[in-house]
């Protein structure tokens, strides 16, 4: 099983370290900086993982997440936010995200959350890593 992962993050420097770190872990990473054509991109790009920033210049991450789910996307969606209020987190999860991380976060934790949520999806760690 491939591990195609899409990073949707408008801050180029955050996207860069995520790209480097996740590529080193064996994910096939692509980066976009806005929400343009995201639904089609995820659907036709064969991404199993989406790391989605909550606040994009042209769209709300939460809105995109809701639309991805409404469109039937089964990708594992991990939402990133720079706001840590509880209602923000709950609102993010209610849109259909699998998990939520508040900036700044430990990279190790992000990796662990990707693996943990893959397990929750019914995959095994071995299949996620293969």
């Amino acid at each position: 099983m491939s591990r195609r992962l899409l990073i949707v993050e408008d801050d180029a420097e955050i996207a860069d370290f995520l790209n480097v770190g996740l590529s080193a872990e064996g994910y096939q990473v692509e980066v976009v900086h806005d929400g343009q054509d995201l639904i089609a991109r995820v659907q036709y790009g064969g991404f199993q993982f989406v790391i989605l920033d909550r606040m994009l210049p042209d769209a709300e991450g939460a809105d995109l997440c809701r639309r991805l789910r409404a469109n039937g996307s089964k990708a594992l969606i991990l939402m990133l936010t720079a706001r840590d209020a509880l209602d923000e987190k709950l609102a993010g999860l209610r849109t259909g995200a699998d998990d939520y991380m508040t900036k700044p976060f430990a990279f190790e934790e992000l990796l662990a959350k990707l693996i943990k949520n893959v397990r929750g999806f019914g995959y095994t760690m071995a299949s996620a890593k293969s």
Partner: protein
Amino acid sequence: MTSQIQNRRKSLLEAQHDLESQVETRTLELKKRGEELEKAVKHLSEIDASRARFLADISHELRTPLTILRGQSEVTLRASHNDPERLRQALTLVARKAEQMGLLVDDILFLARSEAGTFIVKLDPVVLQDVVTDVLFDSQRVSICLKQPAEPIIIKGDESRLRQALLIPLDNAIRLTPAGTEIDVEISVDSERAIFVVTDEGSGFTPEEAKRAFVRFFQGSASRGRAGRNTGLGLSIAHWIIEQHGGTIHIECLPNKGASVRIELPLLKEFIA
């Protein structure tokens, strides 16, 4: 007897009327006080909401560079043992982000102190051209066309704060102006005011953005991601300083792109002819 009763009734009626009128006056007064109190509570809640919003924005603005500092360090530590170039790039980025965070903290502290009223703006006679010469000296990297009258323009100001305020639009212009393009700085004077205008041919503001330019942490689309001092607080700081001097600051969008920042400051009274 009847007349006595009638007199009593009359005076009782008068007393009753008087009492009613007093009650009415007091009720009106109480209503007015209540309205004033309501207004004060509303004003205080607005201040409170604005402070809470500012705090939330500060937290948001600090989290982004912190995420880069932490993420970049952790990813580099995991991966770059054999790649000195990658290590150098990562450290350069970390140093730059730490510097930007320092500038942001300076700006936040400045605004917090200005709100708390602990900043003393000392107003002395200042020659505007001298302040501008200092400001331009600090920005000598780019080509600046300066127009100013030969006669000294004297205003009442705090020299170091004025320098800080005038440098902000100039820094913005430098950041947003393509290399090789000139920035115009013009100083002039009318009957009561000194006028300082910085005009650039950069990507500027949209008219919508110009309206929000003084809102804390607002950044125009052209400004995002650019290098240099870019905390989103500069124009708020300039606005506060100019206000303390009894002056005004405005932004104009230019039709052929670029923007013009106009600062007007009252002339020293003794200087007005």
